[in-house]
């Protein structure tokens, strides 16, 4: 037996278990599963289902995205508020639904509080909690803080973040800061939406699910080098991204399935709120594509958008209707809802700060209520 065989067996067994649990409904109306590799326009490979007319669809999308972009971000199509961060010394901004933009300051990283009442951000050796107007409520001096993630209820919250000492957790009022794991890797921790104050992170070749009290819920060894973690909103699945594959773990840490796109690099992704559809950014050498992958149904994926150059992060609107795709190569953001595409141009200029390094704008998980 080898690693490939064991990985495949675990995925096959999981699919079999689910088939046994829902033997009829799951199979009725399913399209053919095994469109693993499909050639379209002589260039695209898809490790999933390819809908009819895909090539035409793709061309239309590219044309719309490029030619009809609005010159500025006049409004957010899906409502809510967007927290925009330029990790290249660019700063952080909040964009309101009507397009109002507020510069929070020269922060390197930022994240919303659970109900969007506050923002936690990092700058230098400081972790800062501020309100959406930019007023600082408290700050905590720690060496090289990064990747903050805030979780909890209106009255009781925790912030997890990485620092030079490892993964740390602090209460939402800035008290009780403590080290949770000195061996945590440099990817953002992800709070489990279904378990109180429990978060997933990478450490020592494994994904660890741990309570903020220190108790380990489970630990899953993985063979990939993860770049990002993303929970489904019901906490049933955790997507572990790497450049070659996404491993989908279930709530107990068991491998549910893997997602990979042959010949492509996987960039990032996010679960659609309220569903088990995972938006995945796929990069080829000269183009990128965004797929919506149904993790409950192996082989089922839908191409949402494609274009030349590299795409960046994606973010879902709070109601799950719109997907925002960052497209640095085109200096655009593309908002997608079904067949509707709304593109906004000149993104780098709209989020420019003197001394910043430019348009590497991050979005993941930052479109809030």
């Amino acid at each position, binding site marked *: 037996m080898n690693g490939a065989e064991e990985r495949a067996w675990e995925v096959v067994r999981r699919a079999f278990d689910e*088939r046994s649990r829902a033997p009829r409904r799951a199979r009725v109306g399913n399209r053919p599963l095994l469109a693993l590799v499909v050639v379209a326009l002589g*260039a695209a490979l898809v490790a999933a289902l390819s809908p009819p007319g895909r090539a035409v669809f793709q061309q239309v999308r590219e044309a719309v995205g490029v030619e009809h972009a609005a010159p500025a971000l006049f409004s957010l199509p899906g409502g809510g508020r967007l927290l925009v961060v330029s990790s290249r010394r660019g700063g952080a901004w909040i964009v309101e639904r009507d397009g109002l933009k507020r510069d929070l300051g020269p922060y390197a990283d930022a994240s919303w509080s659970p109900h969007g009442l506050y923002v936690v951000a990092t700058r230098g050796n400081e972790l800062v909690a501020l309100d959406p107007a930019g007023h600082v409520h408290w700050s905590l001096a720690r060496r090289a803080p990064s990747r903050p993630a805030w979780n909890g209820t209106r009255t009781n919250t925790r912030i997890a973040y990485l620092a030079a000492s490892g993964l740390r957790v602090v209460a939402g009022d800035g008290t009780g800061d403590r080290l949770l794991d000195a061996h945590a890797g440099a990817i953002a921790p992800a709070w489990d939406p279904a378990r109180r104050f429990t978060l997933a992170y990478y450490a020592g070749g494994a994904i660890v699910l741990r309570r903020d009290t220190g108790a380990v819920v489970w630990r899953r060894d993985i063979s990939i080098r993860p770049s990002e973690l993303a929970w489904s909103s019901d906490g049933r699945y955790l997507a572990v991204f790497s450049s070659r594959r996404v491993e989908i773990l279930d709530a107990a840490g068991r491998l549910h399935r893997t997602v990979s796109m042959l010949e492509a690099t996987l960039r990032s992704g996010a679960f659609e709120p309220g569903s088990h559809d995972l938006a995945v950014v796929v990069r080829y050498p000269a183009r990128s594509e965004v797929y919506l992958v149904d993790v409950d149904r192996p082989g089922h994926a839908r191409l949402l958008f494609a274009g030349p150059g590299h795409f960046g992060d994606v973010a879902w609107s709070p109601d799950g209707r719109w997907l925002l795709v960052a497209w640095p190569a085109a200096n655009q953001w593309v908002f997608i809802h079904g067949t509707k595409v709304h593109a906004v141009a000149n993104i780098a200029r709209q989020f420019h700060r003197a001394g910043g390094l430019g348009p590497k704008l991050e979005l993941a998980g930052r479109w809030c209520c």
Partner: protein
Amino acid sequence: MAERAWIRGAQQGSVADLERLFREHWPRAYRAARLITGDAAAAEDIAQEAFLAAVRNLDRFDRRRPFAPWLHRIVVNRAIDWTRARRLRAEVELGDYVPAPPAPEPNGDIFARLHDLPPDHRAVIVLRSLLEYTPGEIAALLDLPRGTVNSRLRRGLDRMKDGES
């Protein structure tokens, strides 16, 4: 025959029987995909997806028929598609992409010569030499005339022999 019993057991919900079926057929499915694509990660994905298709279609599978040809048909066709697409991609896209070299094989020389062949020739040789199908069975698996299978076998093997000298 044990395989029929495993399929019947799997159809009735037995994970143990499914695992027997998987363990029996995985090595050759993976190896065939590996030989045709020359890419270990692609082979893993292709073989895995073939087994997922088997799970999805388990109830509809006629257990009087052998399982292997059905599985191999999927694997080989996917592997051919993948290999063709990779070649096409290398031709149409910008030239800054260099695919990773294949992982070392026990018999690297044969492996290299096999990969000098077009993918459909490669597939026929893998089906014949590794999976031991007859030309008639290969023709049925790939929906090809038997004469085409014979000519691809002959030309492929000739080219591999030429590469040997």
